């Protein structure tokens, strides 16, 4: 059985030495962000800030719940020493089973312990952090789950998008205009000029947040997969003012309506690619109708930036497994896909059974057909461990022909505008380009001319390898 809430998970993190409670008073205005950022960069623990300046005791902020592979392993019920490959495999297996959520009564939902409705709503009662110096405002939604629903089919989408406190009862945010949230809004609400109900969930169980980063297919609900991975249904409770269901055990729920005819500034914000790259004032505005929250609420934060952090680690897992499924569905002979956190979902490594530039072009087609979040794709033969970036770099350096082994494709209206190297004009037009590097041997080369990799595992016979391994200790190695 998985974790029901954020607090269960913190108990385990504490036992495993993965949580630091900071009892010293800290300032929500830049100090918590700076501490969180430094801790990511030092591969430090998850943080729980217990005393926040300007706020009553009990109002807390956490950072880095899933900011390392060891904490993601623990979230998935694995030992913290699990390898990245093992974590990917466990997650992939977890996705094979879906368990629908269970609806509970309001009395059973800790997130209803406190309720503010209508004029009582005041977002400044929460210590929303000013995360980076120069951000556009206080981001209350970073490690969040944003829930919306297709009113015709009932499909409920969970995503992770940034949301900033605009005033005491307005939020502004920036779900990308190509996101599933945008798709639902543009197809089902905008044509009727109707506001779209939206719930911003803060501090749910760790798997729910990880799944909120997952590119799950349209009309499939992330919450069913969370149940499958956890091995039990997620308990959901109805919102107070809108027709949506939210995790009953989460810390804070902001209920609101995304307005079809009103906008206000969002951003800029230091985003997941590791830069604050000028995406601002092109988002959405949400009128907040209610806020419900637990006693002593924990506001979950990511001091987002250069990798690794929760975003780059979680997206590495969820994006890669989704990409692998998508490529296999297209008949591409994929062995594994790795999204190195350092590549912030801009750089993808694809292992294939049989390569060549035609296969590489098919890989590129897959990544550029719909909305494009990636831009560099390295295709390697199956003898390269995609999780070992040393091996990947070696293949790139030695097997990618600069003339014949590189293909690229331009597109417009579907690029990732957070990509730092795009010009302001390209970002505005969502114009982008993606490239594939074919680091495989050409399939038309006969075996006898393919260069033999001079590694222990490939240039020696099995007999010699086994002899050397058998005698290793006798040579004097320990």
């Amino acid at each position, binding site marked *: 059985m998985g974790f029901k809430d954020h607090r269960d998970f913190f108990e385990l993190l504490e036992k495993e030495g993965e949580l630091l409670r900071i009892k010293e008073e800290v300032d929500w*205005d830049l100090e918590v962000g700076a501490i969180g950022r430094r801790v990511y960069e030092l591969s430090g623990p998850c943080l729980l800030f217990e005393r926040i300046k*300007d*706020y009553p005791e009990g109002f807390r902020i956490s950072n880095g719940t899933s900011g390392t592979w060891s904490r993601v392993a623990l979230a998935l019920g694995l030992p913290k020493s699990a390898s990245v490959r093992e974590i990917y495999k466990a997650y992939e297996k977890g996705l094979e089973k879906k368990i629908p959520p269970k609806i509970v009564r309001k009395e059973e939902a800790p997130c209803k312990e406190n309720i503010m409705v209508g004029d009582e709503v005041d977002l*400044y*009662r929460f*210590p929303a952090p*000013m995360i*980076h*110096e*120069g*951000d*556009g*405002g*206080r981001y209350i939604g970073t490690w969040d789950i944003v829930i919306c629903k297709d009113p015709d089919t009932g499909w409920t989408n969970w995503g992770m998008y940034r949301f900033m*406190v*605009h*005033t*005491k009862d*307005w939020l502004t945010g920036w779900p990308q*205009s190509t996101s599933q949230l*945008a798709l639902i*809004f543009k197809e089902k609400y*905008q044509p009727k000029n109707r506001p779209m109900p939206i719930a911003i969930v803060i501090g749910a169980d760790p798997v729910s947040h990880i799944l909120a980063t997952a590119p799950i297919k349209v009309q499939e609900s992330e919450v069913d997969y969370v149940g499958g991975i956890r091995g039990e249904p997620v308990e959901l409770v109805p919102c107070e003012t809108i027709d949506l269901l939210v995790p009953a055990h989460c810390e804070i729920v902001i209920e609101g309506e*995304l*307005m*079809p*005819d*009103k*906008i*206000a*500034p969002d951003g*800029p914000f*230091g985003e997941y690619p590791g830069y*604050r*790259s*000028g*995406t*601002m*004032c*092109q*988002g*959405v*505005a949400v009128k907040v109708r209610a806020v419900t929250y637990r006693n002593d609420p924990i506001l979950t934060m990511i001091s987002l930036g250069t990798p690794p952090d929760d975003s780059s680690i979680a997206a590495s897992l969820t994006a890669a497994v989704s990409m692998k499924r998508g490529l296999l569905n297209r008949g591409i002979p994929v062995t594994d896909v790795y999204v190195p956190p350092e590549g912030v979902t801009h750089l993808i490594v694809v292992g294939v059974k049989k390569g060549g530039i035609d296969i590489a072009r098919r890989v590129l087609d897959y990544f550029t057909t719909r909305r494009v979040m990636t831009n560099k794709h390295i295709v390697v033969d199956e003898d390269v461990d995609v999780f070992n970036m040393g091996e990947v770099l070696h293949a790139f350096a030695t097997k990618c022909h600069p003339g014949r082994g590189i293909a690229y494709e331009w597109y417009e209206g579907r690029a990732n505008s957070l990509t730092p190297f795009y010009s*302001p004009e390209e970002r505005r037009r969502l114009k982008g380009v993606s490239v594939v590097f074919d680091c495989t041997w050409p399939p038309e080369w006969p075996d006898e001319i393919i260069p033999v990799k001079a590694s222990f595992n490939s240039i020696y016979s099995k007999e010699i390898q086994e002899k050397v391994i058998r005698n290793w200790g006798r040579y004097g190695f320990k």
Partner: protein
Amino acid sequence: MAKQWQTFVGKFRDMREGEIKIFIKDLTPGPRKYDTKFVRAIVKRSKESLPDGDILYIRSESGLKSPEPWYIKIIEELPEYVPGKPWEDVFQAIEKIENII
């Protein structure tokens, strides 16, 4: 001491003097710091041009702070949003309502 505000522009040169509609953030310390207001205001580059004005810090789209502050005198507070469609450029939406008036 003069009250302090902050606003964002694409590039510093986009900031213009005169009577304008502008989103500003209140820099007064405390739990409501960074609260946003949409106002009609007079903004000037120099303090001499607006001696009773508040301080207005300017930041660019990348969050870079302009070395010198501007000055602002609020004439009227407006609703906290501007008419426009989601994902529309807020600056262009402000221009539209300024042109209507």
